[in-house]
């Protein structure tokens, strides 16, 4: 039976990865991901986890080792963030193109400069186009559940893609909170042993990741795109299986009080929690506000998001990153949503706000201000995006 415990989220995530009976962990420590990797190293060193811990000299080597071990058929995990992700990223494209079901936890952190170790979604967005599945957690329970789910999704033979589990650095990774920790036996029941579609085997040699000349490259890319496309319904089906066993239901897009909402916030990650408390306060004053929370960013659940916000007059779209597009188009999350709205002939009033950069707190008050800003603005008055909380 699952047990309710108080635990730091990083440690809980590492324990969950251990309970998934991972075979290889290759990782390099970087703040605020450090506790995840340290604890896994500890579990291996103390004999609690029968796995190979590869203490590599860089994130580039970490992902290289992960690619090798996953290709050989080993259940493989790594974790990084920020500059570490940037250094590793070259290999991330290769992991997805080779359809290797590696799981990686990203303790989301800003990318320098200025040097900043605190939370935003710069690394999450940096990873957006690498062909990985991206899952987003909002609290410790979700970080644990999504880590278990990540292996099940990645290793599903119909999917066979690498999966990122994102958790906000510090604001989640370093918080002690209560959660239900499943037992090894329960996880074993949910997560069958890793059976790769193809694997490197000296007895039956194959080549993985060879050169792709112009006559096959487009076909290879289309095949990879199809894999990510068809993963969307499969991810929801696996979420439903998880709900059956563990009683916690995840969806590609999760909503809170959107049914009759005139204004809907769309957010991702731990600030969505704060938003829900702000929504309760606004609702108590008769303001019909709700929120759609993006649980899966890649593959992007455009249809589900459009459904969630269809009835709203006003949208408050949040990005935790600066996109540097020159000022005339919105941030990356808002762009995806606007594109989906356009494709569905919907034209609500939209405000896009860049919030919570490099560890800047996003408060309940901030949510109320952003909702007020959009609801009181005249159509056409809102810019492509705005920074909030800026000293000028």
């Amino acid at each position, binding site marked *: 039976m699952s047990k*309710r*415990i*108080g635990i*730091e989220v990083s440690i809980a995530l590492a324990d969950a990865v251990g309970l998934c009976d991972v075979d290889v962990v290759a990782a390099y420590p970087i703040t*605020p991901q450090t506790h995840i990797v340290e604890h896994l190293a500890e579990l291996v060193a103390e004999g609690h986890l029968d796995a190979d811990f590869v203490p590599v000299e860089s994130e580039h080597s970490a992902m290289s080792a992960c690619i090798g071990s996953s290709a050989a058929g080993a259940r493989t995990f790594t974790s990084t963030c920020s500059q570490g992700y940037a250094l590793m990223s070259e290999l991330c494209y290769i992991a997805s193109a080779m359809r290797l079901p590696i799981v990686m936890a990203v303790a989301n952190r800003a990318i320098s400069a200025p040097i900043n*170790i*605190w939370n935003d979604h710069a690394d999450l967005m940096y990873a957006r186009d690498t062909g990985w599945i991206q899952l987003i957690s909002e609290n410790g329970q979700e970080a644990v559940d999504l880590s278990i789910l990540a292996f099940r999704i990645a290793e599903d033979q119909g999917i066979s893609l690498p999966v990122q589990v994102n958790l*906000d650095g*510090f*604001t*989640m990774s*370093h*918080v*002690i*909170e*209560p959660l239900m920790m499943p037992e090894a036996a329960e996880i074993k029941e949910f997560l069958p042993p890793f059976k790769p579609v193809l694997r490197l085997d000296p007895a039956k040699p194959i080549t993985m990741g060879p050169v792709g000349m112009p006559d096959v490259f487009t076909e290879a890319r289309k095949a990879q795109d199809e894999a990510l496309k068809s993963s969307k319904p499969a991810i929801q089906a696996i979420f439903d299986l998880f709900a059956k066993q563990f009683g916690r239901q995840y969806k590609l897009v999760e909503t809170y009080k959107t049914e009759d909402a005139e204004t809907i916030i769309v957010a991702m990650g*731990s*600030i969505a*929690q*704060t938003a*829900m*408390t702000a929504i309760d306060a606004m609702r108590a004053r008769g303001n019909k506000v709700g929120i759609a929370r993006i649980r899966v960013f890649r593959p992007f659940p455009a249809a589900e998001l459009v459904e969630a916000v269809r009835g709203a007059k006003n949208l408050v779209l949040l990005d935790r990153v600066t996109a540097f597009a020159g000022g005339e188009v919105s941030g990356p999350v808002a762009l995806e949503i606007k594109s989906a709205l356009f494709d569905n002939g919907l034209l609500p009033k939209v405000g896009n706000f860049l919030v919570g950069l490099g*560890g800047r*707190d*996003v*408060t*309940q008050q901030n949510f109320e201000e952003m909702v007020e800003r959009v609801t009181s603005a005249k159509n056409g008055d809102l810019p492509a995006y705005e920074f909030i909380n800026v000293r000028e």
Partner: protein
Amino acid sequence: MVEIRFHGRGGQGAVTSAELTALAAIGEGKYAQAFPSFGPERRGAPVMAFVRVSEAPIVTREKVYEPDIVIVLDPTLLKIINVEAGLKEGGVVILNTSKSVEQVRKESGLKARLATVDASKIAMETMRVPITNTTMLGALVKVTAIIEIGSLQDPIKRRFGPIAEKNMNACSRAYQETKVVEE
């Protein structure tokens, strides 16, 4: 929901105090969050740590701006930090000090309700170290009753192993000796 802010210096265990409080509350079936002021850690520098305790699930990730309780592990911090900043109306400041409440008020200008305990002395006498984290938790329980003192036993045991008993003794003694000034 009760929100608590701990002030200490790096190495004195303010973060541990916050963690133990949350773990004790969670052990009672309550909901809690404990977190440090995020960033690099430096021994001796002023640090803060935060706790939320609630009967209902905690659905927020913003920082603690208006604590109900402030706990000061190191008396020298009063000279350099306004420990009352943001304190809720009716909130309490719990101080580690060898001085009387009147003297503290005169020297620091603190206006809030105060509770005092000579945690440094208790820690030295029971554990022979000037680390006051578990000692100050005894004072916290005396002042607020947000957790039961017995609920600290298990988290302290798991954190401190062979020196858990001494820590629990320091905690219990502080519980006895804390003076609360009602105003």
